[in-house]
């Protein structure tokens, strides 16, 4: 034995792997985990605990690790709270302990241990409450507590690594590649099914990896390959969701393009062969470095060839401790086995004795002894077990490691996530998975023997195959839970008369047995309450280690059993998963896809600055020289009022509504009448929701008797599509078809007093007032390409909307922008469009916010009385007719230029509390008026407030501005400009 590395182990001859621990160069072997490499290097103390900063070592060999939480990586790649036993040792790995200062050995935070009487469970909730000043003390101390709390610190720098997401499908997903998982996968694959076997370790095999003879493992791997099973390693099934969806987080070897991958796997059947977790039990100082699970000790010896210590005690309450003792004795370690029971399994005890293990029956550990620095195990007080955990100290053992087995908890997480509530077994002293959507097998189903696990796996594979009708073979009888020769002992906590012992139920969160009893005394008796009051089993642990023991201690305090208490519900993820995999590759600039209009390239070439409007990149303004947003948009708006402007309106939703009943359909979905619309004309209209509130506004163009084009606002286009589709299906009696043609047409608005002249330069048809009156629609060539032209205005100016096919966008842009420039105008952007519509009092999504009726918008006449339509019934509600509802108004600051923002609340002067009168919805600096103007809503509207002063309060900006209520139409109220 060199250091703690045992000779003749399976990693003998493996490639050396250099890594750093606390900045110190160390060497492990290919196939090691960080934990096994640290143990091999003699590292016992690896971290400090959450609350009391107690010294902690490696406690397990899996995801249940509660002590060896480390920070991995540096700089932007720093990741805290990783469990050393599941970190694959890779060249260059850098790891560090956490929760300690100034050093791991001399941690200043350890003073918390001395103050532990004050830090009992729930101290947050009561210590800082009253009697003086309510929670003032908490408000003071909170910052210090928050600074002291937590484990490790995540990097604040952007994650430089790439994560990706993959959708997968399979017939059967088997989680876990131990003997049961392998058997299940093979059975299902032999039935011809497509099977995925996901293993969270970097090697398949599970318990087979700890076999001295690895021939069975080799054969199993060959069989999986031959059967065509898709094997995934480093792939943890962390969650089971509805409809057979499983989440699998796959870690990828360092140095690749992708760091982690999320597989969203859709499975016809899921088999859980996730094994079981060995749990500890409570005795004095059971959290010292050197105390670990007995099975973990066996794994370190057998799989990694690492000794947990030189003189080891194994304390067990069940048969499995004998295998650990035997493995260590066979590796040449001095081993003493304490069995809490009177009777031992005969063959196992004989084998252990033959290997040199000293077996002590009816013996339990009372207290682990340690020394400074680091507090690692130096010895053990052994007690004579009188049953139920009561013990009388009788001797002292000189050991440097203690391997504990307090029983086993099947990993029921996946079954539980699929809503199969675990059932307590008094025989097995564990929660067993209930039958359900997830088929559990092996030790995940409470089967403890190798042969039993294999049979259980085969039965699960057969069950999956039969369920999918891939096998006509008879169902296999799955072995019952169990398999121990001697019944396990219900020892949860060791107590010794006259001795006050500090023993931990959940070492990850520093939850002691006394904390559980305190929770009971204070009334937090249900598992859910106990968990939250004490933090037992929370965070990265998720009930793996202390759940059952905590329930047992609570049960004892209540005088009830675990069965009566039940357990909390396990929810995904089973173990921590990087947030990066949920974002996937969609991060940074690519966090959302970008939509570009067919005119994007042309606007870009014209110098446009773009703004995000939903997913669209819309031309915001087109600056000249050093112009900023305000100067450019005001110049553009003035240009439209004076000459002519051209604006991209391609983002409007567009729908083709066709069929003999198309007019009837539109009559039903719009509040105003559409069936009376003549061919070649357009009409402005409103859609309402079923509750009578305004849903969207737009125009309807009648292209033929049975052919309409419907436009919707950019922001609501997708909702309108869904709305129209839903109602089309709900009215099967109507012969009508709705097609979304939003993307099939590219549109430009041409607006301004010179709009007709500009369009006339490139139009191939007559656009005179006679041929194309206000709201007229015609098809003609524009700029040499086929187009639809409608005389529609959003700016209040004479205006046209011209739609052509996207492939003709460049020709249309060049033609219309060129024509506008020849008339003294040019292109304008979204900001100018907004200024122009506010000047005219036209509403957009800022006003149509889902809470308003047509009357609130000042357009009650748009609700037809001659027909039925969606929303009509509920529009008649008494409350909606209340004249005191917020109504659309115009607003002007009393002081010119006063800053006010949309969202500011409006109040009657002197009554500036509560919800107020309404709010400001849109703001604009009107170039036409040379003043700041706004739209908003005030209770009672113009009728009550015209010319009166209101107070606009903006608590976020800290501004109060006096504003005068005026008509919402600031420019051309008679509409003369619209008609030229």
């Amino acid at each position: 034995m060199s250091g703690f590395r045992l000779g003749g182990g399976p990693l003998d001859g493996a490639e050396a792997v250099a890594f750093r621990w606390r900045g110190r160069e160390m060497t492990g072997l290919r196939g090691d985990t960080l934990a096994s490499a640290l143990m091999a290097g003699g590292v016992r103390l690896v971290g400090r605990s959450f609350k009391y900063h107690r010294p902690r070592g490696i406690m397990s060999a899996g995801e249940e690790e509660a002590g060896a939480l480390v920070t991995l990586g540096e700089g932007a790649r720093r990741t805290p709270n990783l469990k050393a036993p599941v970190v694959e040792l890779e060249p260059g790995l850098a790891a560090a302990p956490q929760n300690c200062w100034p050093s791991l050995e001399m941690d200043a935070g350890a003073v918390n241990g001395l103050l532990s009487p004050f830090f009992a469970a729930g101290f947050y909730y009561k210590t800082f409450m009253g009697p003086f000043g309510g929670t003032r003390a908490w408000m003071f101390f909170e910052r210090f507590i928050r600074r002291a709390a937590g484990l490790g610190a995540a990097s604040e720098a952007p994650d430089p690594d790439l994560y990706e997401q993959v959708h997968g499908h399979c017939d059967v997903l088997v989680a876990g590649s131990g003997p049961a998982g392998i058997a299940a996968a093979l059975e299902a694959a032999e039935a011809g099914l497509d099977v995925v076997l996901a293993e969270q370790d970097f090697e398949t095999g599970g318990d087979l990896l700890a076999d001295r003879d690895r021939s069975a493992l080799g054969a199993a791997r060959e069989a999986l390959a031959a059967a065509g099973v898709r094997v995934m390693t480093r792939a943890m099934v962390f969650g089971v969701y509805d409809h057979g969806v499983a989440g699998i987080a796959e870690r990828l070897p360092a140095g690749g393009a992708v760091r982690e991958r999320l597989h969203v796997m859709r499975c016809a059947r899921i088999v859980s062969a996730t094994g079981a977790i060995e749990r500890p039990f409570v005795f004095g100082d059971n959290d010292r470095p050197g105390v670990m699970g007995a099975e973990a000790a066996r794994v370190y010896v057998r799989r990694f060839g690492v000794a947990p210590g030189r003189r080891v005690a194994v304390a067990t309450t069940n048969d499995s401790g004998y295998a650990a003792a035997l493995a260590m004795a066979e590796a040449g370690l001095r081993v003493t086995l304490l069995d809490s029971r009177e009777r031992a399994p005969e063959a196992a005890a004989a084998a252990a004795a033959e290997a040199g293990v000293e077996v002590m029956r009816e013996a339990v550990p009372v207290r682990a002894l340690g020394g400074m620095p680091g507090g690692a195990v130096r010895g053990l007080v052994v007690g004579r077990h009188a049953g139920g955990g009561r013990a009388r100290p009788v001797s002292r053992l000189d050991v440097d490691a203690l391997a504990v087995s307090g029983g086993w908890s099947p990993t029921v997480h996946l079954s539980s996530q699929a809503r199969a509530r675990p059932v307590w077994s008094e025989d097995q002293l564990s929660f067993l998975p209930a039958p359900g959507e997830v088929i559990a097998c092996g030790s995940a189903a409470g089967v403890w023997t190798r042969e039993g696990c294999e049979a259980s796996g085969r039965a699960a594979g057969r069950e999956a195959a039969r369920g999918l009708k891939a096998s006509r073979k008879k169902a296999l009888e799955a072995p019952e839970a169990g398999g121990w020769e001697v019944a396990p002992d219900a020892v949860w906590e060791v107590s010794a008369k006259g001795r006050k012992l500090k023993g931990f139920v959940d070492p990850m969160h520093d939850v002691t047995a006394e904390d559980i009893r305190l929770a009971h005394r204070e009334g937090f008796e249900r598992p859910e309450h106990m968990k939250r009051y004490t933090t037992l089993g929370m965070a990265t642990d998720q009930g793996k280690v202390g759940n059952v023991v905590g329930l047992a201690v609570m049960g004892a305090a209540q005088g009830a059993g675990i069965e009566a208490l039940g357990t909390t519900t396990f929810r995904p993820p089973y173990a921590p998963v990087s947030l990066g995999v949920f974002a996937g590759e969609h991060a940074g600039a690519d966090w959302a896809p970008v939509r570009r209009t067919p005119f994007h390239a042309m606007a870009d070439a014209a110098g446009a600055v773009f703004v995000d409007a939903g997913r669209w990149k819309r031309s915001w303004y087109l600056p000249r020289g050093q112009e900023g947003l305000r100067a450019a948009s005001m110049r553009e708006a003035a240009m439209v009022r004076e000459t002519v402007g051209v604006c991209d309106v391609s983002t409007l939703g567009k729908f083709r509504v066709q069929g003999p009943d198309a007019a009837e359909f539109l009559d039903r979905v719009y509040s105003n009448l559409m069936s009376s619309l003549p061919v070649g004309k357009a009409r402005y209209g409103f859609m309402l929701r079923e509750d009578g509130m305004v849903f969207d506004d737009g125009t309807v163009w009648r292209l033929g008797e049975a052919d309409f084009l419907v436009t919707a606002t950019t922001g609501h286009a997708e909702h309108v599509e869904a709305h129209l589709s839903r109602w089309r299906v709900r009215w099967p009696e109507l012969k009508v078809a709705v097609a979304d043609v939003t993307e099939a047409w590219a549109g430009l608005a041409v607006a301004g007093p010179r709009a007709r002249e500009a369009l006339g330069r490139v139009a191939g048809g007559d656009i005179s007032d006679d041929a194309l009156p206000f709201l007229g629609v015609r098809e003609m060539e524009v700029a040499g390409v086929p187009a639809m032209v409608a005389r529609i205005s959003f700016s209040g100016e004479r205006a046209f909307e011209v739609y052509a096919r996207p492939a003709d966008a460049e020709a249309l842009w060049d033609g219309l922008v060129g024509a506008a420039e020849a008339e003294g105008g040019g292109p304008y952007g979204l900001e100018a469009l907004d200024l122009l519509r506010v000047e005219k009092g036209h509403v957009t999504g800022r006003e149509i916010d889902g809470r308003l009726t047509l009357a609130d918008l000042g357009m009650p006449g748009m609700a037809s009385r001659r027909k039925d339509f969606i929303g009509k019934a509920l529009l008649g509600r008494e409350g909606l007719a209340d004249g005191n509802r917020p109504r659309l108004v115009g607003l002007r600051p009393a002081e010119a230029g006063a800053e006010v923002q949309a969202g500011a609340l409006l109040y009657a002067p002197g009554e500036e509390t509560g919800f107020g009168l309404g709010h400001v919805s849109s703001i604009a600096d009107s170039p036409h008026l040379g003043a700041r103007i706004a739209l908003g809503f005030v209770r009672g509207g113009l009728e009550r407030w015209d010319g009166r002063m209101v107070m606009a309060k903006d608590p976020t900006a800290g501004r109060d501005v006096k504003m005068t209520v005026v008509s919402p139409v600031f420019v051309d109220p008679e509409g003369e400009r619209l008609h030229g």
Partner: protein
Amino acid sequence: MAEGVSVKLRPAGPLWEAEFWPGAAKAGAARIAGALDGEPPAPGASLVAGGARLWRAGPVRWRLWGGEGAPPEALAWIGPEEGAVAELGRGLACLELRGPAAREALARAVALDLREAAFPEGAVAAAGYRGAAVTVLRAEGDGCDLLVPLSYAESFAGALERIALRLR
């Protein structure tokens, strides 16, 4: 072409949607397919004939991609008593994924079962990709075509190209 997968963006070309009124769908589909010298394909499958591809997009809706005429002859007979026809192809772009890793790349984009048995040559499926409705069509060999809204095309092409680069 790269070893794994290549991505090419091109205009979708003409694509028409025919929607039949209830009761006329079965005969209508048979007539369209007949014009292409074939039978109406089952849901999820397509008929490739005469330089066009026909598939069912809904209980009473069929899509025809390609073909001459506006609308093509196979649809020209549909009048207001039978149903309605709309041209959608001008608003779509086609992303061609080719190469042995095409489906592997696609699995990073859409939640479809792309295994050979579930998505063989000629298969068609509607899917969502980053919030947009897309149509996935299995092309010859390992390739796939994605019909995507024109406005998203450039963005999607970039995303798929980045995926393709990782698979090369």
